[in-house]
């Protein structure tokens, strides 16, 4: 029943009645539930779309389909990366797994950056806020909830990435705990500051009409922070002997992958129902 690490079939867990690992089943059931969460939010949006009160801004004038198409594409690519990560860990290829995780994180962060930019633009330029119109209420709540899902997903990916460095055996868990936390913290700082730098830079370009160089010039502090952070990350990632992470954790990565793919699929639905629908 146990410790046949070499021959484990990733889709079959002999300790369960169905052979499906518990974690995977849990994730499937959770996603069914999450479908209903998003279903309700999307329904709310669509209902109010059909009953716009007087003075509601016109979505056509607000949405920028080009940018959103780009971020949608990036998110789709992240799904591909996620699939590669799952594939990697199933084959026990730790290196490939880590790189794929990093790529997924980057794609997810770009998506989030686009959303930060989009939100700021809507609020500051197009003057649509959470409270001044029903469109603002439903739009920000729906896409914000999705963004939160993506953010949680990114956090999870980061944790999984960091976990892949956990040293083997029980040696010095306290030390690992501190290092792990530091690792996570640096990662989070890099992500947040690059998202902010990108989103604000884009704002300077779009609104202030500045050049790339000029726009990024305003964001010098976060850029420096991000680059320093990357360097630290690189240092953290150097090879230091056997780790407690491998094929046996395939189910963990796979469950996370299910979540990630689901969040992407939901975005496709939102993209269609919220954005594209307005331009039909």
């Amino acid at each position, binding site marked *: 029943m*146990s410790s046949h690490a070499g021959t484990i079939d990733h889709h079959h867990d002999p300790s369960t009645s169905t052979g499906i690992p518990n974690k995977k*089943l*849990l994730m499937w059931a959770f996603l069914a539930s999450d479908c209903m969460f998003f*279903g*309700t939010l999307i329904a709310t949006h669509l209902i109010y779309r059909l009953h716009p009160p007087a003075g509601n801004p016109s979505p056509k004038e607000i949405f920028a389909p080009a940018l959103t198409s780009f971020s949608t594409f990036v998110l789709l690519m992240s799904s591909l990366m996620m699939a590669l990560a799952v594939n990697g860990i199933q084959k026990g290829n730790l290196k490939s797994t880590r790189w794929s995780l990093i790529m997924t994180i980057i794609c997810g962060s770009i998506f989030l950056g686009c959303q930060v930019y989009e939100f700021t633009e809507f609020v500051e330029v197009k003057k649509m806020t959470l409270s001044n119109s029903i469109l603002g209420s439903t739009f*920000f*709540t729906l896409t914000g909830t999705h963004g939160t899902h993506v953010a949680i997903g990114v956090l999870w990916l980061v944790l999984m990435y960091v976990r892949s460095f956990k040293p083997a055996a029980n040696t010095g868990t306290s030390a690992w705990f501190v290092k792990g936390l530091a690792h996570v913290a640096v990662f989070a700082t890099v992500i947040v500051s690059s998202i902010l730098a990108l989103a604000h830079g884009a704002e300077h370009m779009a609104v202030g009409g500045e050049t790339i160089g000029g726009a990024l010039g305003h964001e010098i502090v976060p850029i420096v922070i991000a680059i320093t952070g990357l360097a630290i990350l690189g240092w953290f990632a150097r090879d230091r002997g056997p780790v407690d992470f491998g094929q046996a954790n395939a189910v963990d990565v796979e469950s996370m992958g299910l979540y990630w793919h689901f969040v992407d699929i939901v975005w496709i639905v939102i993209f269609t129902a919220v954005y594209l629908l307005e331009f039909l």
Partner: protein
Amino acid sequence: MDATIKSSFTDKGSAVSNRPALLWRPTAKTGLMSWLTTVDHKRIGFLYGIFALFFFIVGGIEALFIRLQLAVPNNDVLTAEQYNTMFTMHGTTMIFLAVMPLSAAFFNYIMPLQIGARDVAFPRLNAFSLWTFLVGAIIINLGWFMKDGAPDAGWVGYAPLTSKTFNADHSIDMWVMGLQLLGVASIAASLNFIVTIINLRAPGMTMMRLPVFVWMTLVTAFLIILSFPAITIALVEVMMDRLFSTNFFEVSHGGMPILWQHLFWVFGHPEVYILILPAMGIISEILPCFSRKPLYGYPIVVFSGASIGFLGFAVWSHHMFTTGMGTVATAAFAMATMCIAVPTGVKIFNWIGTLWGGHLKMRTPMMFALGFIWMFMIGGFSGVMHAAAPADAQQQDSYFVIAHFHYVLIGGSMFALLAGIHYWFPLMFGRVVDEFWGKVSFWVIFAGFNITFFPLHFVGLNGMPRRTFTYDSNLGWNAPNQIATVGAFILAAGIGIYFTLMIYSYFKGQKVGRDHWDGRTLEWSIPNPPPEYNFKVIPQVHARDAFWYEKHNQAEIAAEKASLAKAEAEHGGIHMPFQSIWPLFCSVGLLVGAIGVSVMDHDPRPGFWGTKIAVTIIGGVILFFSAYMWALEGNEGYHLHADEDDDKGHGGKAHH
């Protein structure tokens, strides 16, 4: 558990002592710490039960205040505001804090035993559900101790009565936040049960051999994970309206309060089946046991349960017949609602079929079960009367509805849950409840219940609207209200007897051995009270009423057990998960965060220095940190070797 693959189970002593201080795992088996860190489904189930019964009494006392106020016309025991708070809290408490968690208590305690499992699939998640439920209950009830008072917008909280304009104080915030947390708890628990039932069945326990109670647990769990999101989002929308001035239900910006009703009832109707299906499951266990016959038409009972759950999603608007939905929608929902009478009727018929030709042993659980059939039928029939939409235009929001749903909720859910407590008492505590006083409690409850709620049909048809703190004496409502109030006190006396009896039996009840009732399902095959690992050997299941089969094929089973035991011993013994403190801490984080969101006043200081934001963030940090530790400590466990006489040690002297 996945951990078994990694084989991180080690011998208990060494594993715990070798761990770094940071990943300390509690090992206390007795005392407060053992309860706070428990991951044992039986202990968790027991705690669910205790909390639920406590809130049942709280809700009952609220009901008594309601009845007291209505005992005579133009009464002023309570002010209007107090009365409105009372019925809001009564409904909310009874549904979310009494009946649901009491059902959850049985899911937790009984279901794993019935499928031959040693625990649920995610023991720590299970603990988290328990504590989060408690946290939600605390938040909802906090208002009693604050100047803002407890919530008073009705248990259905119709917009725009819940908006800042019409309800400026924090009571609604607490109601919203409390329900959110209860939703988290219920969904987490249900995911756990779904995985447990699908994945942790003993070998041979095919889906069509599952005890009906397990089936109903499964259906209920699906109803919960699919219906709670609707109310969660609706509550998010209310919360956004209140905190960030969004316009979901803000009429002046085009918000539509009717949307709240749809979202609420998309959840609300499945919710009433969430309340009744576990009860039906319990009844389907008790009747065969005390008839000494298998359940009549097992597959069709299972199937009808599933179709009730399924249809339950298609009828929500029957609570909205008076909202001007238009003819077609009204007709569609009326027809769909009536359809539910068919699978429900099927259950009733099959229960009667179970009795037919049996040897009925009239013990107290059986009395409650039979009472259930009668009372539920009456409640179901008034439900069908509601389903006739034009007639419902006269009944909606009148006391006729109150009568309908108390028949299905008390005569249905509560009767079955009380039956269940009585039925499984010998299993849980190794002692039996006295028959004589059990029957007394049944009859007093039965009489009190009918005296309370039967007259309310009449007063409803006579035009008395619900949620009214006073009424005039010239409307013909005096007598039935007076009778109902007297009945409510008889009912309270009955429940008082019942509880006293349970407490007495817990300490002084006659000790009995295993299988007190000559049961049919696996939970009766183990000693009582059950050892923490449940089954010394995971049973091999050969038939639907697995234990009945075992009892009637003893030789074959004994040989099989021996060989299974040997295999398990070779494998290293019984896997037990470690206890953990982090689920509790996660819930504490939720508590702090929820207090920040719903209780603290806004204050003008910016950012972190505003108390509201600070408290919320602190809660979030506790939550995140605890979840991180939870993940880090991992789902490891230890091995345990059940010694031979462990079996007898628990059970008192053998019976039969």
